[in-house]
């Protein structure tokens, strides 16, 4: 062995460097994925344990780590909810409430004062898996809405486990229906389907809501029920001023229309994209 090393004439640092280079080149080769997984954005399942999808998304890069994505939690009128802060549930807040949540972390909530379910408490969790990019200063206004419907809370109390993936709609193919403030548009899927993959096809998944009837088993050492109390920011909900004013939209060089000098509106039948107007 001695003669072998002497014949190779490799100094110890060079020998260590050779091992490191071999290791670095060997790892990407072993980490190659099958090509069948490339047609979807999320390899994880929406039914995986809380935190797995978001943690995996953090490795994608971009201004995601450390960003508090505002979330607006809406619930039936009169419902109170409390977020976990510093290892314990904070003060109860009247829904709707906005909070800034880290991407990849899981936040436990306590829902109380549920209408028609006095004395019942449910503890849903929210996992933010992606963020949105509103204009600077409008982050809180354009918070991701998460609705806790009365029906879902009742199902959770009855023993069901509801997993809801909130996604950003594709604006090029939106559903031509009004958005309801009280109820979020929801697509119910079959038991065998994956909500994350279905949402990934319809738009861009941003958050996962999980509601069950599990009673808290507080353990100060592991703090698992609280998901290690990730940092959170509670954002107050002020009354937004009505910014739909028609002032100052007239371009330079033009005057705003003042007189109505047109014929009455005439609604015609449905037409395809290529059409000929009636004369």
């Amino acid at each position: 062995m001695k003669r072998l090393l002497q014949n190779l004439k490799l100094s110890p640092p060079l020998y260590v460097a050779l091992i490191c280079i071999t290791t670095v080149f060997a790892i990407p080769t072993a980490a190659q994925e099958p090509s069948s997984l490339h047609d979807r954005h999320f390899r994880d399942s929406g039914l995986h344990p809380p935190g797995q999808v978001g943690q995996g998304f953090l490795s994608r890069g971009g201004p995601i780590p450390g960003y508090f994505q505002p979330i607006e939690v809406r619930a039936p009128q009169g419902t109170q909810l409390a977020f976990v802060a510093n290892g314990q549930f904070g003060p109860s807040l009247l829904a709707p409430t906005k909070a800034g949540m880290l991407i990849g972390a899981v936040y436990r909530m306590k829902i109380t004062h549920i209408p028609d379910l006095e004395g019942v408490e449910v503890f849903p969790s929210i996992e933010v898996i992606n963020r949105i990019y509103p204009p600077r200063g409008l982050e809180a206004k354009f918070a991701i809405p998460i609705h806790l419907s009365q029906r879902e809370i009742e199902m959770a109390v009855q023993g069901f486990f509801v997993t809801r993936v909130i996604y950003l709609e594709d604006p090029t193919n939106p559903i031509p229906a009004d958005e309801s403030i009280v109820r979020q548009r929801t697509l119910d899927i079959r038991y065998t389907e994956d909500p994350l993959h279905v949402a990934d096809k319809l738009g861009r998944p941003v958050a996962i809501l999980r509601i069950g009837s599990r009673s808290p088993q507080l353990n100060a050492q592991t703090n698992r029920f609280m998901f290690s109390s990730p940092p959170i920011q509670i954002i107050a909900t002020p009354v937004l001023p009505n910014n739909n004013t028609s002032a100052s939209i007239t371009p330079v060089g033009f005057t705003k229309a003042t007189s109505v000098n047109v014929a009455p509106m005439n609604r015609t039948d449905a037409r395809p994209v290529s059409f000929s107007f009636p004369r």
Partner: protein
Amino acid sequence: MRTKHHILHLKCASLATLICCFTACSLPQQQLRPPATIQISDNSPAVPLSTVPTTTHANSPIQQISYQQPPAASNAATAVKTGPIARIPLSAETGGPTSNIHPGAPYPANWSPPQISQPWPQDEYVYQGGDSRQQVNVAPDRSIHNLDEEDTIVHYHTRDGKIAIQPTNQIPIYAPRFSSVRHIGGASQYLYRDHASAVDNPLKIAAAQENLGSEQVLQRIQAGRNISNRRTGLYRDESKARDVEYRTASLEGSQRQRPENGTLLNTRVRIQNSQEARLSKQNATAITATDEETVKVYVKDFMPYKVTGQNQMRSTFHYEIAEGKSRLEIKKTSSNLNALPGDELEFMIAFKNVGDQPVSNVTIVDHLSRRLVYIEDTQSCDVAGQFFVNDTVRESLILRWEITEPLAVGESGSITFRCHVR
């Protein structure tokens, strides 16, 4: 013995390096960061601006968390139980923190991935105006083709009878809308995913294997003598081929026939082969034109390519194409560049004849996005015209204004209407 220890140390160092490389490459980047800590100090009703980490880097631990309590007095007692929590000032307009404090880690304004232009991401915007996808065409019967959703155009007739199309500018409106997919199942078991926040206990070597030196060593013996390599005395003679390829010229003449008619080709003008066919055609046309069958129709600046018939010229039409250009400028603006579902937006389309000729049959067509619904009886136009609303099969609306009077040079008009954001 010293060599054995040297080899042992070398092996230990290699093994430790190998383990470190695997550990560093297999752990995600976030897991190597120190865990975030919450410091909610007592007796601190307000946090000075200087203490808030406005320039928090992604890799640095979060030093302090701002926690805004609800303004309700009933919650004050509960807050006392959990301890006073720091507050941050909030903006009255946006609901978020003021300009000095960002709700999260700072990110560059208008950030977008490299080599991707703004606005980004596009799935958070609703666009209005322009001619983005298929190019809009207007047939002579004024039927419109390829009018996509979100397109806004104006088409008009110029003095020479042509139909001109001019799209408006494109307005990006930040209006994200969310929906959800729900899965209902039974909670049969509870899963929890643990992930390491840091690794501070590297593996130790459990046992060291002693490598003894070999008892037998094969000695390399030098060659006692060298075998000389002699060069060959014979060389292969590479002779060139004696036979030469015999190319026989074609006995027949060229198949290319020059045109028989015309005198130009009989001169000594050197004409390339590629030009002969064209010259032959033009020559034949010229001969035909100088025949008895003279030209019956003469169009200025156009050569006749086919002359038929034997009738004499009966009438002459003289067309005068007007000089100058017809140009219509059109702009579209919105009352707000961001909207939530349920908001109302007011759009304004302003147009002006900036050419040096009047234009007629001015028609403004606006294909609204499916996220926008026209509010009835909210449109107004300051020039005389007719307004129509057309439905489409995709439940989007097409607004159309037909200006009845021609638009003189320098004349302008404007249209306003309001929409409801779905």
